[in-house]
């Protein structure tokens, strides 16, 4: 468990919600091409909390998210998820990947598998569930996202919004402790965005811990418990949604919001 006193003052001490489940301490990452995508980032996410990361393009939002489930490795600092350190140890990384679900902007469904198989696959291979158990879980989730009747379809036969909902179901089927969403709606038409946001809203209500990157300020405000504003690989501001939008602490944040809203 990370020591609370090393966290910067902008980070809450998880009073309202549960204990911290994600802690990022002094995380830095520089890409081989010299871009410093993360610079001394400190973030704490509490259980059942919904954290929204916003910021201009290239500010390191995706990189932070990708570091959280080990798709990228940080150069220095520490990331701890559910008391497990992501420290280059392969075993730890594999456990964390199972605990953390990720939904990508471009869906990344497996095009050669049916919707059901997309959701079943990792359950069988990683969680070692048998076919019946996996299918039960999958159908349950697909029904929840409103796609029970499309289980036998292939991804290419679905609309973007439907594909994104399958991607969410696929991640949920692993019963992750944390869900990460990277601009999960920005590849969608306006009317399809609605469907996906609906699912995410329901998840938030159910108490799922979520970290999401979005450009939808309206949605951020609605579901976000806390908003983190990033720029140039640094966390500029971290505040409750209300405080953030009503009364941003930083000059830069204000400038950004005035542009967007």
């Amino acid at each position, binding site marked *: 468990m990370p020591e609370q006193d090393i966290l910067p003052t902008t980070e809450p001490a998880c009073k309202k919600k549960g204990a911290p489940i994600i802690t990022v301490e002094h995380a830095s990452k520089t890409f081989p091409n010299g871009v410093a995508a993360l610079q001394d980032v400190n973030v704490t996410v509490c259980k059942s909390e919904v954290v929204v990361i916003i910021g201009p393009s290239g500010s390191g939002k995706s990189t932070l998210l990708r570091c959280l489930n*080990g*798709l*990228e*490795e940080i150069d220095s600092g520490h990331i701890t998820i559910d008391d497990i350190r992501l420290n*280059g140890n392969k075993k730890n990384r594999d456990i964390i990947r199972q605990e953390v679900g990720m939904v990508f902007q471009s869906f990344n469904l497996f095009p050669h598998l049916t919707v059901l198989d997309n959701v079943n696959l990792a359950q069988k291979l990683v969680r070692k569930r048998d076919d019946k158990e996996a299918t039960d879980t999958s159908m349950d989730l697909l029904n929840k996202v409103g796609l029970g009747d499309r289980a036998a379809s292939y991804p290419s036969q679905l609309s973007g919004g439907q594909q994104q909902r399958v991607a969410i179901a696929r991640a949920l089927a692993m019963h992750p402790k944390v869900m990460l969403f990277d601009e999960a709606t920005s590849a969608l038409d306006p009317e399809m965005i609605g469907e996906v946001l609906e699912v995410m809203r329901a998840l938030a209500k159910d108490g799922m811990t979520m970290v999401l990157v979005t450009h939808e300020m309206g949605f951020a405000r609605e579901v976000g418990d806390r908003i983190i504003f990033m720029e140039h690989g640094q966390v500029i501001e971290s505040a409750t949604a209300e405080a953030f939008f009503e009364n941003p602490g930083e000059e830069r944040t204000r400038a950004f919001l005035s542009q967007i809203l």
Partner: protein
Amino acid sequence: MLHTKKPRITPLDIGIILVIAAALAAFGWRVDTQLDYEWKWTALGQYFLLHDPDQGWIPGLLTQGLLTTIKLSLWTMLFATIIGVVMGLARTSRSLFNRLIGQAYVGLVRNIPPLVLIFIFYFFISDQIFTAMGIDTMVRNAPPWVQEFLAITAAPVNQFTGFLSALVTLAIYEGAYITEHVRAGVQAVSVQQYEAAYALGLSPWHRMRHVIFPQAMTHIMPPLTGQFISTIKDSAIVSVISIQELTFQGMELMAATYMTFEIWIVITILYLILTVSCSVLSRYAERWFRRHEV
């Protein structure tokens, strides 16, 4: 595969190193115990460069073969490119006649083993055509400076028709592959480029010459240089019709000296030197053709 980590030693590295080490050790042990072979590396020098009391330093057998291979490859590439461009354009032309000819050519040549092609060409087709054209007499009666020139750029008079047969066979063989590269390259240029040229009033020839072909060249260059490397390799096959190129000279040498292993290894290295330097050169050529891309 995602490269998420900095390079570090993985179990796979260690496994492969072990396997390679084991294979080498086994090979060494077997060579030592099984194979009765006397290595004579030092004797090889004279086949590269030889001191003759009358003529001074002269190229040895292998050097001669290497030079022939280079000359043959260069000529082959020149003619193969001409054939390939003509046939490639035929394959992309509007005329069904042209396309059918291109298709028949490519289909026929690419589906017969080169070994078989060479025999058929050598004994049958090229021989008839060259005799009919009287090339042999022509070369023999040519003035000395022409003969000298041919000897330097191609082959000495007495081997000229053989060289020409090999050249024609190889050019036709490689030409079929270049045809396909050219076709793909031309078809990779977008329809809009045709339309833009057309809207400016360019004639079909100008359109091809100034707009389509230069762009197609960017697409054609990489496979074309690859084909050049193939040509160097494929030229080995004309040794079966006794063109005195590198492989042939090597085999002759083995026949005389029985230094089988040394000579195979040296020949392999010589081919490697040729092809690798070729691919280095080709990289520069490609860059030149891509200079308009930022």
